[in-house]
């Protein structure tokens, strides 16, 4: 079907028209919320369908007359970009539906402008994934950064949000500079910046490695890889919830797409040490992200750090895939890449679901810190149960999507002993152990997130009359929750989709082996490993049903209500429950060296004793502030050039004349 690229461009154009319509209806709140956003959601659904169709179709490209005369915009839809467009569109559909019900009157920028920025953001993400030449890619890449910057600073009256926006755009811009340099190296003196030409270039090892490291730096800055992650926990919580859902769920994935496009598509040769570097960086990011997520007090910062962790796992998967493909072990590389891409899809769904959950909680209670929430399952059942699905998926528990990608990742590690060099074999246990630890800690974080917010007693009075999510918001959340569950229960069908991508990137997919075994997910062969989530879920359900029937038939179902057990101390108050800091205290104690903990203990005889603990980020003190200091000092030195005295200026001019004359006649 030649549907492909043209249809997608039509949908993107429709999005932009919606945005402009919003601009003209700047303050007509009802029109924007109830007409434009749902229309955007419907368009997103259509886009998802097109991407699904395009996944297996052959690649087609189109050239638009706009852009530079010498380098007009090239757009190309191949299976890699179709897969990522599918992820973007599916999540955008849910988030747009949620946004229809979420935005209320009198908040930050007028709704029309918000609608414009929102739809430009969506359009630029899709076009980044479609771009087929360096100029189009860079333009769409930074338009994405710019539109998301304006969305982050929606209510810019608050200073923290402004600083978060500034830090975000700054690091995004520096990352973009890295990517531009990488394209520059890739074009290897041909001056032609279309991806087709970049693919044809044969770079010698040194320049290929330089391009690879630049790509890792550039896309790492946008994905939130370790040294460049500082903006993520600031920017995502600052944005309104639907936007942070899109940023965390989908925008980070465009960075993963970019990295895959360059390392696999544009650079034919790969070196094994590339895989080790990406693996190391990915794991460090994952461990760092999950430890910080476990000790956070603000619910949206907790989810932001958890995004860093998941991005780390994805990059670890990609690193392993590079390691395998550099040694020519294509089936193993396909397995590792399938694990990474599966995690991309499942993380996109459950993370955006969790952010939408926090959005609903934020609107009901206008409270973000975990210390002031609690017991919301009674007043907001819909949001609670949907967020439970998201939390379980994020914790990587069996019947849900998160577990399948983790299972595939661990399986691919078990095949690693096949790697030729002994040093790499030694790598396997350490890395597998780290991934297991990260997955377990993710479970810990999610229990803290769900337990402190939704369960127990409400820690503030005003929580009692929190209203549940509205109609549109429920539709959005249920759509995302359904997708998470389907990803968990039907891995074989999802992997059939992913095979088109791994087939393009690595040559082979898991397809033939997986499809033969019906309901069971069998990566290599039945003897080695298999996992049937449907049967697994049926087993648990059967156990549940039999127990329930056994009890009700043989015995009885009578229940009585009474006050909870207070162990003889009648004045139990909600404040006695475990607070967020309390729940994170063991992690803070065990991972002390990783964190920069400042404790403020009350001294004896304090009028109001107060205990305050703040956890900082080492990178901020050891990397970002020294860099700012160096720039400041350099500026000081350069500032001496302009000291105000006219005779000094004349001297500069005189010396320049003499200097040029000497140089010219040398």
């Amino acid at each position: 079907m030649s549907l492909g690229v043209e249809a997608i461009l039509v949908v993107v154009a429709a999005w932009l028209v919606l945005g402009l319509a919003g601009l003209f209806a700047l303050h007509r709140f009802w029109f924007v919320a109830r007409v434009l956003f749902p229309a955007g959601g419907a368009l997103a659904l259509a886009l998802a369908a097109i991407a699904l169709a395009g996944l297996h179709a052959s690649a087609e490209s189109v050239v638009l007359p706009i852009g530079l005369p010498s380098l007009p915009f090239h757009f190309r839809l191949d299976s890699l970009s179709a897969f990522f467009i599918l992820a973007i569109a599916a999540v955008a559909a849910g988030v747009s539906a949620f946004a229809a019900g979420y935005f209320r009157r009198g908040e930050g920028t007028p709704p029309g402008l918000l609608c414009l920025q929102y739809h430009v953001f969506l359009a630029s993400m899709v076009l980044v994934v479609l771009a087929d030449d360096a100029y189009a890619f860079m333009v769409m890449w930074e338009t994405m950064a710019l539109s998301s910057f304006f969305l982050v600073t929606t209510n810019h009256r608050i200073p923290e949000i402004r600083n978060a926006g500034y830090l975000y755009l700054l690091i995004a811009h520096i990352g973009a500079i890295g990517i531009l340099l990488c394209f520059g190296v890739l074009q290897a003196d041909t001056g032609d910046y279309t991806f087709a030409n970049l693919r044809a270039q044969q770079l010698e090892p040194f320049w290929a490695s330089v391009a690879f490291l630049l790509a890792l730096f550039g896309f790492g800055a946008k994905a939130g890889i370790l040294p460049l992650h500082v903006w993520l926990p600031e920017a995502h919580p600052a944005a309104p919830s639907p936007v942070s859902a899109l940023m965390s769920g989908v925008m980070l994935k465009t960075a993963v797409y970019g990295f895959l496009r360059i390392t696999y598509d544009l650079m034919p040769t790969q070196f094994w040490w590339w895989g080790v570097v990406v693996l190391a960086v990915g794991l460090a990011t994952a461990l760092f992200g999950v430890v910080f997520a476990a000790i956070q007090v603000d619910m949206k910062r907790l989810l932001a750090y958890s995004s860093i962790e998941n991005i780390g796992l994805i990059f670890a998967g990609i690193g392993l895939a590079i390691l395998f493909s550099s040694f020519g072990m294509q089936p193993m590389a396909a397995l590792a890449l399938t694990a990474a891409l599966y995690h991309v899809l499942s993380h996109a769904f459950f993370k955006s679901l969790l952010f939408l959950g926090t959005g609903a909680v934020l609107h009901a209670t206008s409270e973000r810190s975990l210390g002031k929430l609690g017991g919301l399952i009674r007043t907001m059942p819909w949001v609670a149960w949907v967020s439970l699905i998201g939390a379980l998926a994020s914790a990587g528990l069996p019947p849900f999507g998160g577990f399948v990608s983790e299972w595939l990742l661990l399986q691919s590690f078990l095949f690693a002993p096949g790697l030729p060099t002994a040093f790499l074999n030694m790598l396997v246990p350490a890395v597998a152990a780290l991934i297991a630890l990260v997955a377990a800690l993710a479970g810990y974080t999610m229990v803290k997130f769900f337990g402190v917010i939704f369960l127990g007693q409400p820690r503030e009075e005003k929580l009692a009359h929190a209203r549940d999510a509205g109609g549109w918001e429920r539709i959005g959340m249920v759509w995302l929750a359904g997708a998470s569950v389907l990803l968990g229960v039907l891995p074989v069908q999802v992997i059939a989709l992913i095979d088109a991508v791994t087939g393009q990137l690595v040559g082979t997919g898991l397809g033939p082996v997986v499809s033969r075994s019906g309901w069971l997910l069998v990566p290599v062969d039945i003897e080695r490993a298999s996992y049937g989530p449907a049967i697994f879920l049926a087993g648990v359900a059967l156990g549940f049903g039999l127990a329930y029937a056994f009890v009700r038939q043989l015995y009885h179902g009578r229940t009585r209500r009474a006050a909870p057990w207070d162990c003889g101390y009648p004045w139990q108050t909600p404040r006695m429950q475990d607070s967020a800091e309390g729940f994170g205290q063991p992690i803070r104690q065990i991972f002390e060296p990783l964190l920069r903990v400042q404790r403020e203990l009350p001294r004896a005889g304090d009028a109001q004793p107060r205990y305050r603990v703040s956890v900082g980020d080492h990178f901020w003190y050891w990397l970002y502030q020294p860099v700012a200091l160096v720039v400041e000092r350099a500026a000081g030195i350069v500032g001496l050039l302009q000291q105000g005295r006219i005779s000094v200026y004349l001297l500069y001019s005189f010396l320049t004349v003499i200097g040029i004359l000497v140089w010219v006649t040398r």
Partner: protein
Amino acid sequence: MTLTGIASQILEVVAALALAPLLSGWVSQCRAWLQNKSAPSLLQPYRTLHKLFNKDSVLADRASSLFRAAPYIVFGCMALACGIVPTLSTELPLSPAADAIALVGLFALARVFISLAAMDVGTAFGTLGARREMLIGFLAEPALLMVLFTASLISQSTSLTTIVETLAHRELAIYPSLALAGVAFTIVSLAENARVPVDNPATHLELTMIHEALILEYSGRHLALLEWAAALKLFAYSAIGLALFFPWGVAEAESPLALLLAAPVLVLKLGIGGAFLAALETVSAKMRIFRVPEFLATAFLLAVMAMLTRILLGA
């Protein structure tokens, strides 16, 4: 999906359900003898279960539907876990559905639900218990995974039935990697089943208990189910221990009558295991909660060492 397969699968689950309370009763009996006390009867656990099932279930007035659903989910998970681990025969139709990693995931699912249920009522003890349970969980789970990985590296597969078959057929030789994995596994099972060095199953002292704190609010049939699930968990862990380190005597695929021989061998092995567990408990004293991470960290390192020796020394 042969007939014997289904029969052995059902037999295995029923045996687990029946033998689990017996095993915990046997362990508490051994412990009493070793501590020169007169031991309760072997069938005491069955009587308590029957008593609890008959009583009304008293729920906290604030408890949500999650609180009421959690016992059934945990019981279902533990029953499935016992179904997956090959105790009587290795021809189990359920085993392709879940391999070693899925088993660890199953335990994690049960642990998460029981912790959430504990936090639901919103008293200090529930959240305290949940936090400690998750603390032990996030340290024990990777160690268990590493132990299972060591075994799967030896048998080139992560599906439990294949592991048992390969370990059973090789000639009797000392595997250093399996030895290290065995020590790590004992530490992990002590921690997971709330045995003495980490947590005292019999105590009701709020500040020290972990597992008890989780089920503090439950009563009547919910408490019965959770007690039964705890016994099932102990049974599952010992089954894993036997499967990995003493796999002989498990019935093979095509021999139904071997099934009859496997049952007594299983009971014998469980008896010895239970006695060994009771001996371990009487020897060791309960640790401070913040010594537990170091304790489990040693288990974690031992398991990783086991994998390393397996890969480097090939044994």
